[in-house]
């Protein structure tokens, strides 16, 4: 690993658009998404269900059904455009340079093979190892993920393991080839809370050990606070805000991000208060509003919001937001609850 790898750009998604051809015409599930991941950095991608975060993740490995999918834009991984790779080049990148962990550990492992076998398969696919070497490497990887008695576990079948264990096996498998980028698609959603934090700690530890870039896709802001350094908030296929994790929690700029943060139940304060909800529903992708996509649900929406789509504007350093009124909102809030630092407690 090189010296100043921290600042090196690993993945750059530029103006990515993903169109699906469906029976009801073309649907644009991801619309003009750009973000970047540096080595050793964890980027959180947050949003409601159906906002395009998983599609973005799957596009990075081109896992979507190519026949019904059209990509636009660039996905640069170490300056190579993944969208332009041939199929065999793509197979070399998959699993070797970029790995993915999936949401559901229950069905992510093949039931007919032992877990050791499946890790060995990934290793043999990408690395020049003998079967024996790969087997001891599999045990080593399992040990790394903190599974007790890894020598015994490698010979067990997936149904003999618990959900947390299986997710550890998935992580061991994903990391076995030392990828440069790890995509974790809601890795903790199917797990209970205690296991969740263990798995997150594990991903964090291993990330530092291998100096990986990580994309953490989640709808859980707690997860974001725990592991991410940068956050990309998506709404209906677009990036609406991009900022460091500190400023997202302390001073969210976009009304949607504010709404998301407000709807987290607070441990302190009166219990009988109802939880905050963002009014309205997410429109479907076939009936996208003309102006700002969040306008129909936004309390700050004005004429211009309903009429013209705002662009993703850079603001201060590294902050980006897609809203016509973010400056007004910021001023108004500044007057209301004093300084930025006051609400920082959410973060800890």
């Amino acid at each position, binding site marked *: 690993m090189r010296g100043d790898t921290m600042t090196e750009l690993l993945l750059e998604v530029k103006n990515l658009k993903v169109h699906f051809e469906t029976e009801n015409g073309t649907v644009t599930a991801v619309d003009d998404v750009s973000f970047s991941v540096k080595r050793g950095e964890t980027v959180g991608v947050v949003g409601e269900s159906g906002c395009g975060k998983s599609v973005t993740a799957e596009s990075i490995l081109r896992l979507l059904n190519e026949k019904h999918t059209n990509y636009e834009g660039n996905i640069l991984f170490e300056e190579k455009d993944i969208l332009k790779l041939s199929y065999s080049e793509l197979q070399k990148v998959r699993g070797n340079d970029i790995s993915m962990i999936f949401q559901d550990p229950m069905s992510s492992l093949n039931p007919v093979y032992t877990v050791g076998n499946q890790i060995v398969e990934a290793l043999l*696919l990408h690395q020049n190892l003998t079967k024996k070497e790969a087997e001891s490497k599999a045990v080593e990887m399992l040990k790394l993920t903190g599974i007790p008695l890894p020598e015994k576990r490698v010979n067990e079948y997936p149904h003999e393991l618990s959900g947390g264990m299986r997710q550890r096996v998935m992580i061991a498998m994903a990391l076995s080839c030392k990828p440069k980028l790890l995509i974790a698609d809601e890795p903790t959603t199917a797990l209970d809370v205690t296991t969740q934090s263990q798995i997150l700690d594990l991903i964090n530890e291993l990330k530092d050990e291998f100096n990986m870039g990580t994309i953490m896709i989640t709808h859980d802001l707690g997860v974001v606070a725990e592991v991410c350094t940068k956050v990309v908030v998506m709404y209906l296929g677009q990036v609406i805000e991009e900022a460091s994790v500190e400023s997202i929690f302390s001073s969210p700029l976009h009304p949607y991000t504010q709404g998301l943060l407000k709807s987290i139940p607070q441990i302190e304060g009166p219990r009988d208060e109802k939880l905050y909800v963002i009014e309205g529903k997410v429109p479907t992708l076939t009936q996208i509003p003309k102006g700002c996509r969040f306008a129909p649900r936004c309390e700050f929406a004005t004429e211009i919001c309903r009429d013209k789509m705002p662009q993703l504007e850079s603001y201060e350093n590294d902050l980006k937001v897609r809203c016509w009124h973010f400056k007004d909102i910021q001023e108004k809030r500044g007057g209301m609850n004093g300084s930025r630092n006051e609400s920082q407690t959410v973060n800890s």
Partner: protein
Amino acid sequence: MQNIMTEEQLNVLKSDMKRKHRNLLVKRFLSNKLALSGSIIMIVIILLAIIAPFFTSFTPYELDAMKRLNAPGGEHFFGTDNYGRDLFSRVVHGARVSLMIGFAVAIITSIFGMIIGLYSAYFKKLDGVLMRISDGLMAFPAILLAIAIMASLGPRVENVIIALTIVFTPSVARTVRSAALVVKEQTYVEALRAQGASSSRIIWLNIAPNVLSPLIVQATFIFADSIIIEAALSFLGAGIPAPDPSWGNLLYDGKTVIFNAWWMTLFPGIAIMLTVFGLNLFGDGLRDLLDPHNNKAKK
């Protein structure tokens, strides 16, 4: 927590786990009455087909004009037929022919059905073509299609196998395809693609083992079905050529003298019935055994 194990301990552990797994399989098999009784019937029939000819002094082709249509008893256990041939050795030799054909058809249809089913499940475009062809083949009644193919190929043992293979492959392909379609949508297949596995690797090393159990069950039923259809073909004169003893031929010979010599229809009939019954029991038992939903309860 993380105690290191020596190579030796590891191997002991490994073989221990393997033995336990094997014991569990044996126990499950023995506790499954259907599979057990089916396999006992089949083993007895197969053993008889192999060793019985050594215990009779007659060959299935030996004519004896003096002993036409003798009733069972004496040196002819099952009596003699209208040419004075020993019926027992003919039934036993018929078992060899029928079992061989059934087995061959089951194996060959499994191989073809597996290939067609897996590829049409995985590749959408192939699916349309291959499944329409098998729809076309399945639209014919099995026996009619078999007769038509036999009529064009001519009556020989190899041709019976070819005809039955063509008749049964579509249904195997369907079974494999529907099982593979379910497996294909599982996350682990997507995870494999995310790891850079090639299509053929996913199809043969990862989807195929998951569709084996319905395939094996289907194969035993096809074994039984092809015995019945082979008998029907031979009975109609479109199967195994005449002097060779197949169960269908024996029934055909017995048909004309059914009121004078009941044994000529009864014994081959019982042979067919027992074999098919045994195979069906075995198949039903296997289905229960291999169905993972049942395994959980028995563990």
